[in-house]
């Protein structure tokens, strides 16, 4: 039935584009995925990540480019010919079929024998730990259980690729953490290739082998979670990865990989990402966690507000020129207190300035 091979080595997106009228939801997205990888497509809403997933599934035709599985072009195949498993955001379980029938649907469509279907369905339900719910209808299950049925239904057909569209967004916080671990466990156990769409960086960081950060329909950065967390390649990626302090400052000195920028009356050292010269305007990104009060901290700022979040205090302080900064403190700080804030040069990222404006 399925028109594509199972033992592919590589999935390749080649300049994939999709536009809706004048709006370009995807622009020249190119990406290579090796078999067995767990890839997260990460980005704010409207960045094109769900569009990309629907294009992969065959639910949306491309307006440009191609999708290849090794040497086979698959972007003109219908969804039913691709043999990919998809987990939908709202699960899309068939409400009139029992859990067992839902999970066995793909196998029945492939015309497998009853004994084979029963065996595989039982194994899949065992994998997602729903053996005892097999005769229930989806409406009788909790959100987390429905989610697991959706996963079992997608993987039971042993798809070459599993696509997941924000599968955890409808669950509460505790269940989200549980299901996150569950999804990774199943991925490892089945050895499938997974492409996972999310807007939650924690989810992407903890699940994925590689993360693809998207914005405005374009790929901004592809990398391992630690690379993305520690060294985002662009200021807007940095902002999306939790660098809440984004300051426009002028560069006063550049030395092999490091740059010094002027802040208020003082100089701040940071790691230069990209190219900049003395006198340029740079965007400086610092995580609130890395900006702490310290002896000799170059930024003098007055505390506006602070809150205790267990272990540490997090707060907002403003500099003499009114620039607001998010900072962390290990000891209690009071509103109105004047702090000398600073950060390790490794943790201060300096981007060439006249790039794209940061995400609002």
């Amino acid at each position: 039935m399925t028109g594509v091979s199972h033992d592919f080595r590589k999935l390749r997106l080649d300049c994939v584009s999709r536009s809706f009228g004048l709006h370009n939801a995807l622009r020249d997205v190119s990406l290579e995925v090796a078999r067995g990888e767990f890839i997260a497509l990460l980005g704010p809403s409207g960045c094109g990540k769900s569009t990309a997933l629907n294009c992969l599934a065959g639910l949306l035709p491309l307006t440009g480019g191609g999708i290849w599985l090794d040497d086979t072009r698959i972007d003109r195949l219908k969804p039913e010919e691709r043999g990919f498993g998809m987990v939908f955001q709202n699960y899309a379980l068939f409400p009139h079929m029992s859990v067992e029938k839902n999970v066995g649907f793909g196998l029945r469509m492939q015309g497998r024998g009853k004994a084979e279907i029963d065996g595989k369905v039982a194994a899949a339900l065992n994998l997602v730990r729903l053996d005892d719910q097999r005769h229930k209808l989806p409406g009788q299950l909790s959100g987390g259980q429905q989610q697991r049925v959706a996963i079992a239904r997608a993987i039971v057909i042993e798809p070459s690729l599993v696509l997941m569209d924000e599968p955890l967004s409808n669950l509460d916080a505790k269940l989200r953490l549980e299901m996150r671990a569950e999804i990774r466990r199943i991925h490892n156990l089945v050895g499938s290739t997974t492409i996972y769409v999310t807007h939650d960086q924690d989810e992407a960081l903890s699940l994925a082998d590689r993360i693809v950060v998207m914005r405005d329909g374009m790929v901004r950065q592809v990398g391992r979670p630690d690379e993305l967390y520690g060294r985002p390649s662009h200021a807007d990626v940095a902002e999306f990865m939790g660098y809440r302090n984004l300051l426009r400052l002028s560069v006063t000195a550049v030395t092999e990989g490091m740059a010094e920028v002027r802040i208020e009356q003082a100089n701040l050292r940071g790691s230069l990402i990209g190219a900049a010269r003395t006198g340029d305007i740079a965007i400086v990104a610092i995580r609130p966690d890395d900006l702490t009060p310290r002896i000799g901290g170059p930024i003098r700022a007055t505390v506006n507000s602070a809150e205790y979040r267990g272990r540490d205090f997090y707060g907002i302080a403003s500099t003499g020129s009114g620039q607001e900064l998010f900072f962390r403190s290990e000891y209690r700080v009071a509103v109105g207190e004047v702090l000398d804030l600073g950060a390790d040069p490794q943790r201060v990222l300096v981007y060439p300035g006249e790039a794209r404006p940061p995400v609002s």
Partner: protein
Amino acid sequence: MQMMIEDKPPLRLRLAAMGFDSVTLLALPAVLFVLALFVYPFIYGLILSVEPKDGAVWYTNYQAFFSDPFLYGTIGKTLRLAAPVTALCVVISIPIALRVRWMRHQRLLTTILVLPITLGTVLIAEGLLNYMGPQGWLNRTLITIGLISGPLQLVHNYWGAFLGLFISIFPFTFLLTLSYVTGIEPALEQAASTLGARPWARFRHILLPLLAQGLAVNFCLSFVQAFSVFPTAVLLGAPAGSTRVISIAAYTAAYEAYDYSLASTIAMIMAAVQLVVVAIILSSRGLLYRGPMGGAKG
């Protein structure tokens, strides 16, 4: 022995537990409306039907109806007209509704399809008479291009009434089907297609089971309308022959024989037949899935 003293909660609480509280009063206008405009006339007609004109036994009229083939034959004739028309309407409305739900100009098309409702059955019948009559455009065109040598008999027979009834019932059926079809979560079909289901399999295994319940209700509502066909059967059909439907029999009894009692009897029988058909359809509905048409909760 210990005496048990039961502490009964106040009446208000007991009523509330059964679902009656002050909000229930809001149903009162509707209840009065139904009583005055449906229940009272119905009972009035029922009583009228068992009080024959000449003061005979109460079942005289019913006996008369079922012993005269000219009268009881109208049941079969009406069923032969109404049931196939309704079935055809329901069946044809499905593919059209499935197509229309993805159209960008859905409202325009829906408006065009629904227009016949606003025209009324008489106008449709007159139009069809002009269009399909022996001297109508259709016959003239067919003769001119040489497809036929003489005019076809398209009206004043069963098929004339069939077509007229179809045109007046279809918009109603279509609107109901469309609302059921658009109520089905589109992701369900997408999910089925990623699981390897081709279009027919998606219809057969996903859409049809989810629609079946609605289609049954739709059939009942359309059927009741079609069963009470009157102008179409008179104007487009053969009211003395193949389309002498039950409402014509009732009309004849009431306004030609001035036998209101017999007319009421016929109306009661008409209601009973409709009820039987609706009951059969709705009881077989128990076999169908009835639940939400989306997968997720809330």
